[in-house]
């Protein structure tokens, strides 16, 4: 079967092309581009990516306006049906603001915009998005954000840890995130939000290819299904 992966573009998204290139490089199929004002998603999508950027200029709160845009109603419905959804950086912020993932992403503890490659520990290697990684594997993925400081109350954090929903953790302190959480899964395991950019680490020319396995994990699982 041919993989049908979509990338949603909001006004102010700026990693949508990188995400589409990554999907195309790994799946071999063209990425379907969706605009924020589209009320309906194309039929029979296998995968939806919400890219990084500064949707709606980060007005009100990062991701808050995009979370209420017409296309997100369809994305939420698709996620509820079990369609895999990946949100990276601003996409992660949109997922928490829309309620698809718990918690919130606040201004970095340092107040600074952080732009560098960091080490992540793969905490859950059993998920749809991480099955090609080894448990505990250390990977290097670039990040670039101002609001990546993950916050959730202690009960929620305990639940996330207990249910294996912390997908990635920063190896060193990066942005003030509670328990150094870099990426979280929803309860059903079909929605992943993460601040680092796996789509920026899929080609040796990027300086590393550690992000490639994330796309391979989800695409291979879908093509096998």
């Amino acid at each position, binding site marked *: 079967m041919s993989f049908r992966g979509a990338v949603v573009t909001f006004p102010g998204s700026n990693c949508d092309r990188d995400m589409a290139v990554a999907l195309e490089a790994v799946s071999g199929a063209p990425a379907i581009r969706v605009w924020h004002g589209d009320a309906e998603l194309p039929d029979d999508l296998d995968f939806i990516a919400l890219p990084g950027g500064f949707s709606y200029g980060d007005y009100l*709160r990062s991701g*808050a306006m995009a979370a*209420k845009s017409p296309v997100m109603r369809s994305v939420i419905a698709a996620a509820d049906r079990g369609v895999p959804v990946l949100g990276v950086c601003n996409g992660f912020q949109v997922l928490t603001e829309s309620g698809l993932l718990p918690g919130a992403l606040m201004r970095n503890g340092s107040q600074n915009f952080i732009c560098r490659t960091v080490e992540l520990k793969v905490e859950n290697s059993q998920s749809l998005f991480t099955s090609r990684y080894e448990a505990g594997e250390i990977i290097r993925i670039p990040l670039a954000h101002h609001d990546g400081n993950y916050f959730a109350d202690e009960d929620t954090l305990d639940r996330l840890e207990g249910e294996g929903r912390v997908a990635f953790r920063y190896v060193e302190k990066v942005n003030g995130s509670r328990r150094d959480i870099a990426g979280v899964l929803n309860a059903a395991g079909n929605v992943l939000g993460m601040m680092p950019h796996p789509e920026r680490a899929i080609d040796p020319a990027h300086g590393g290819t550690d992000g490639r396995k994330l796309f391979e994990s989800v695409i291979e699982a879908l093509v096998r299904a």
Partner: protein
Amino acid sequence: MKARVFVSLKPGVLDPQGRAVHHALEGLGFSGVEDVRVGRMIEMDVADNVTDEALDDMCRKLLANMVIENYRIEKLETA
């Protein structure tokens, strides 16, 4: 009427922005400032028939993020 919504971080949620502002105030030589929390005020002109419940709903659905923020609504009757 005018409705003002004051959005503030919940107690216990660290406010790095407030901390930076606090530090800057001290740098300017102001003493006696014990804590600074930065929030947001949203002012709306709304029709008189907009109910308190509707205002509350606006806050919960968009204006505040209930994971990290509290809100307070203040209504000002306009002549």
